[in-house]
């Protein structure tokens, strides 16, 4: 039993997409630009050459926010989406009927259709691969060149993530929606 979350030192991100590849290789995710569990959000820079606004060009690594009040879980008519014992938002593909309510409900656009199972898929925090083998990092955290991510148990006051969240300022995405995301962006 744990309450897993992730802190992202997003200023380190160089948009190299190592995380995306590691995720696909670890979890057997389908290729295809819209088939991914994690991604890096990029905005085209503002301004005209040579006067460009550096601050407008950011790299924002993102994925399922593993909300504590997840809209996707609320709307699922078959309870295919559920919280597992570690608070990770999961999808039971045997129950999923591909009604796609969850995809519409998710404010973070974190879900996609897996063409093999014809069910909805998303980030699992590597629960059925790395964590199931007793490893303590996700594939994306482990491989990151600039070490953007720290995954861990929010209920353990001594975990690295708990220490980071206690000692550094951070924000969540779309916090006004009250979804209580468990991804925290460090400033």
């Amino acid at each position, binding site marked *: 039993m744990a309450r897993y979350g992730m802190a992202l030192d997003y*200023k*380190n991100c*160089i*948009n*190299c*997409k*190592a995380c*995306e*590849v*590691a995720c*696909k*290789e*670890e*979890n*057997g*995710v*389908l*290729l*295809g*630009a819209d088939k991914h569990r994690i991604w890096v959000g990029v905005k*085209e*820079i503002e*301004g*005209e*050459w*040579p006067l*460009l606004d*550096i601050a407008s*060009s*950011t*790299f924002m690594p993102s994925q399922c926010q593993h909300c504590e009040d997840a809209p996707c879980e609320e709307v699922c008519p078959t309870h295919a989406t559920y919280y597992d014992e570690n608070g990770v938002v999961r999808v039971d593909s045997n129950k999923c009927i591909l009604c796609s309510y969850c995809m519409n409900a998710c404010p973070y656009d974190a879900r996609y259709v897996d*063409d*093999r*199972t*014809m069910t909805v898929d998303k980030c699992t925090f590597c629960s*059925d*691969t*790395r964590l*199931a*083998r007793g490893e*303590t*990092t996700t*594939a994306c*955290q*482990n*491989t*990151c*060149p*600039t*070490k953007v*991510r*720290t*995954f*861990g148990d929010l209920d353990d006051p001594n975990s*690295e993530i708990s220490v980071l969240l206690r000692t550094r300022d951070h924000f969540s995405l779309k916090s006004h929606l009250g979804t209580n995301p468990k991804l925290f962006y460090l400033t």
Partner: protein
Amino acid sequence: MEVEISRRKFLQGTVAMTVLGGTLATTSVFASEEKENQKNTPGIPKTVTTKTSTKKAKEVPFLCGMCVNKCAGVARVEDGIITKLNPNPYFPKSRNMLCPRGNAGIQTTYDPDRLKYPLIRIGKRGEGKFKRVSWEEAYDAILNGTKDFKGIVQILDEEKDNRSTIGYCNGEGLSKEGFEDLMGKKIGTPNYVDEVSICLETAGGGFFATLGVYPEIDFEHADYMIILGANRAEAIITPDTMDMFKHTKGRGLKTVCIDPRFTNTAAKADKWLPVNPGTDLAYILAMTYVIFSENLQNEEFMKKHGVGYEEYKQHILSKKYTPEWAEKITGIKAKDIYEMAHEFADAEHPIIYPGRRSIFSPNDYQLRRAMGILQALSGNLDKKGGYIYGNPIQLPAEYVNSPIYAQAKERFDTEGIAFPTIKSGSWIVFRNMILEGKNPYPVRAMFIRKHNPMMGVPNSAKTRKLLEKMDLNVVIDILPSDTAMFADVILPEASYLERTSPVKAYGFLEPSIVQRKAAIKPLYETKTPEVIYKELAEKLSKPLFEISKKYDKDLQEEIAKRGEEKVYKEDGYDLADAWDKSVEEKNKELVEKVYGKEAWEILDKNGVYYPHMEEYHKQLSPNDYQYYPKSKRFYSTKGDSLRVICKYDRLATKGIDAMPTWHDEWKFSVPKGKFRLITGRHAQFTQSGTTNNAMLRDLIPTNYLWINKRVAKEKGIKFGDMVEVKSEVGTVHLKAYPTEKIAPNQIFMLHGFGSESKGLELAYGNGANDAAVIKDDIEPVYGAAVMHSTNVEVRRV
């Protein structure tokens, strides 16, 4: 129920989407049915990505071969299939990470387009028609030829044992030295070209001549950095990339990025200043001028370590390299130069980032010299937060018993070069002198390993002519590259995950020794490079000795004196004797000899070894490791022996400036209506070797032409429109990406795309090959290729 999507089906899908009008006609050996059958081959995964299981798996330490960095990883092998590549936390240089290419290495090993068995050409050169043969038949074809091409025996006989009639080339990698041993030391030709003269030769050479080192940087303690002409967020270099971006953006390392383009590195900087391509030297000279004119240099340090220091100071001041002067040349405002010079002088640990990239302008050697001297003016050398010389951990070089061939001639590729490199020459000069008939003796064969000059050497049309001119081309590689299409014999090599490679030592701040171990056995009929060298040497050894006996008077005399068998063995004519032992045996022997039995056990288990590793290596957090405690790192190693060569008189003896000097012929100008073509790299691709990688292609489907948004609008070019780029040497087509990240008179494309080999299903016809349009200009010091001197026309098609 789970529908299985085969690799083949996936590939068909993506190809249909992105290859415009390309018909994928394949020859018999690259046939699609054969690829379809592959999914039933044991040891090949059935799907593109494989979910890792919870089963116990074999963990094998490897060194990545996707680019030149050689980062350390651990391969997860389940039932003989590699399912995941993870970073190896023991290697100081790669800092417990694998980049996107490193992660996607699985896709290269399991690429259905792999060269799977030896091939012999049956069609015309370049047509791509080959016949599958056995290894024995392939070696025999190299030796004796076929009805379609000549073998090495005939060529050497006709050239009276002039070994120099054979040329060879090899790209960077761990088994490169073995190929140099085979071709250079054993077969005995000096005519070798490699990636150095189309890459960073002047950067390495310029820094070395000036500071005696091409340094590592201690980013942890540096507090100010000017990064110019380097794109470390996209052209990943370890450990620089990982260390740099943990400290940028208001976290200790104030950063100014100077680059014609707004790159991902610029996005991580505090300030970005576009510079006119090829004028960075004028900027550095102006920085130096401000330092000297305001007396901001570390005078004591320079008086102690500088050579020709006073003369350099007078030179800079008397030439009046003022920021106002530089503004007109570089496009960087004078006030910005003053500000940077003051910030540089005020910083405790300032860094002029040395950079690592191919050569962009003819003055690159002088640029590197000027950068090195400017860095030295701060005194921030050989110390914490500065340029690191470090400790060069050593492994002794292997001795190869090389025969001396009396009939072999010296290399000739020296035209227009002040200091020709004896070992690896100049690709462009070597090629062009042969095409222009300036070679003093015929070059009739090329042995090409892990190298794709058709896409790497500027002016592909000329490279094609060179390859067409040869009597024999032998290609050793893992994929059917554009260059492989011109081969007479193709020998398929095992990919890096299928082979144990010679051990490698890394020096600098935290030195270590690393070993790549084979995660799986070589797939199909491929063989490891060292096995290929040995078998080829065995095949060639006696017949080539017979030719030497016929023409080499020195050898005839020796045989008369000592007897044939003795001379053959003792004087190195037994070409295969360098591979008497396997790589595994050699590695063990070497490491045990230098560092002891225990060191070998640690290295073999972990993939990494350094003295006191078990005591020093600690995990500090889920993300951070200590490799060496700070007190044991090699921050300062040079002491009084440190030299800063401001004036280098030897250069002047060959007409090269002894001190960095600006010449107006280097000014940037583009005729109206034309564009300057600039090129570069991306984190998701390494040259042409990775463009057929399914995973990486998924991240960047093609190379786009960056063109200024307002200019594109004027020309009616929208995102995704096909455009033609035409230079005086060639024409290519690719899709447009209008953006404000580039100047109105410049365009940019990623290097490595636009393959014409039909054997590469994903890379074929996708995007544009920059080498087809870049002119074959050289710089004057080493004759190395200059990449950013080509003006082009652009139009929508």
